[in-house]
């Protein structure tokens, strides 16, 4: 049973791997799912409840749309709270992005200008969310593709201020930093060095793909973690110490054993940086 163990390196949980994932007892292992897939009845929910009896879970939302200029959907919050009460996750997180607008859901994590107005709105939305859920959440830095005007804040300053105003923690996605640094032209290691260590409650790793036409890197989660991302991760962990680390894989899904092997690299990195708590 892994529920009470310190969180080490975890894996995104896929239905294709259910039996192996349920049985696996690797040290520090935990699993993450998108709650939107389980905010229904039927077999999926029953499946997740069985997993929750044995393993620590994280709920990583993609649709609260915290950066929309609107309050989070009350029904969505109610369903998320109900799921939290059923599966008792150790971590709950969302993205610094928007996806729902005027009653329509656009399945992506969309950008916005980091303005003073946006800071105020998102702070209010996080506070409302945390009150509705009865717990704090972690907020993830997004991947960037567009050069966007109208920012009053840089991303790290914006995230730090959100954490200060709301008490939320930060989920640092190293692959997103690598992808964004390539696409927008900034120094990824420098970004990681400025990220507030004390606010980081979780780290994400993933693979990316390349859009040759637009010379962009895409946060596609459909490949193994690339060496530059591993290097950034080791650099980060050496500075901040061990933090629960999740390997995301959504496409070109390999065998569970292959994901476990990739996870073992992250677990070894965490172990070499000190005791997990």
């Amino acid at each position, binding site marked *: 049973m892994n529920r009470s163990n310190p969180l080490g390196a975890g894996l995104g949980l896929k239905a294709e791997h259910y039996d192996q994932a349920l049985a696996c007892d690797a040290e520090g292992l935990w699993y993450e799912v998108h709650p939107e897939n389980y905010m229904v009845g039927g077999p999926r929910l029953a499946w997740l409840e069985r997993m929750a009896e044995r393993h620590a879970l994280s709920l990583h939302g993609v649709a609260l749309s915290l950066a929309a200029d609107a309050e989070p959907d009350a029904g969505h919050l109610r369903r998320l709270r109900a799921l939290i009460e059923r599966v008792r996750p150790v971590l709950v997180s969302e993205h610094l992005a928007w996806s*729902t607008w005027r009653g329509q859901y*656009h*399945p992506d994590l*969309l950008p916005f200008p980091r*303005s003073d107005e*946006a800071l105020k709105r998102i702070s209010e939305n996080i506070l409302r969310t945390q009150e509705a859920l009865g717990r704090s959440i972690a907020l993830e830095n997004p991947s960037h593709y567009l*050069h966007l005007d109208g920012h009053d804040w840089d991303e790290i300053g914006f995230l730090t201020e959100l954490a200060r105003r709301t008490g939320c923690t930060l989920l640092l996605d190293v692959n997103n930093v690598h992808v964004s640094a390539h696409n927008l032209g900034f120094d990824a290691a420098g970004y990681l060095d400025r990220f507030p260590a004390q606010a980081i409650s979780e780290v994400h790793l993933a693979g990316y793909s390349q859009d040759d036409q*637009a010379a962009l890197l895409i946060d596609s989660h459909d490949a193994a973690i690339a060496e530059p991302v591993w290097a950034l991760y080791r650099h980060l962990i050496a500075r901040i110490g061990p933090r629960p680390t999740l390997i995301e894989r959504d496409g070109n899904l390999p065998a569970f054993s292959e994901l476990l092997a990739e996870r073992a690299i992250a677990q070894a990195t965490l172990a070499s940086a000190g005791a997990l708590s």
Partner: protein
Amino acid sequence: MNLSLGQFQDAFVEALYQRPAPALASLTEQAAFAVYRNTVLCGCVEALRANFPSVETLVGTGWMHDATRAYAQQTPPDDARLIRYGAGFPAFVQALQASQDVPYLADVARLDWYWCEVFSAHQEPYLTLSDLAGMTATDLERGHLAPRSCVRWQWFDAHPAYSLWRVSREGLPWSADHPWVAEGALLSGDSDGVSHQPLQIGACAFLDACAAGQPLQVASQIAQQTQPDLDFSDLLGRLLQAKAFRPLTFA
């Protein structure tokens, strides 16, 4: 760009769906904007393909790709739970199928949609045969059998929609000697998954009457009038086995 957050989001959505958004010209002229357009559209298309697998089996990947793209452009999801996306897709397919030689396609799409509804429905208590033990004939006549929210049924009078749907969904071959007759279908869900079975016209009429709030006695009369040779005892047993009803209530 000097837009409020809400104005930015209004314009961004217009641009996502290829509608004019002059205020965001500095964004839409970047090649990177296509990443967002593609991701949103692909998310919708993949959700529809996952929710309507039998339709794709019947029409092929190319037709399905075009149809789902067109539907997604016209009708984005209104719920982040994407298994709930596509309520209007059967009607959309109905309008498209005139150009195809697949007159039963919309009914197959309806059964795929029922599968999604049943698969994701919250579970409710259900009536068992033993619950009926000890009840008098008068009790039963007065009682109301309400179908559970995780149950769907329909009679299809133009073609063997249930058989066509089942073989498409399960990747089975269609037998040339399968009788081309009207069929009904019953789908019911529980925490183990979705089960389904063919249903006769009287059974569909019975469930329609139960759902409309008719007492058991009236509902059974409607069923027998619709299909005089209906074996009602057998039907009731099958429906109870399928956990089709909430516990009995009385007027």
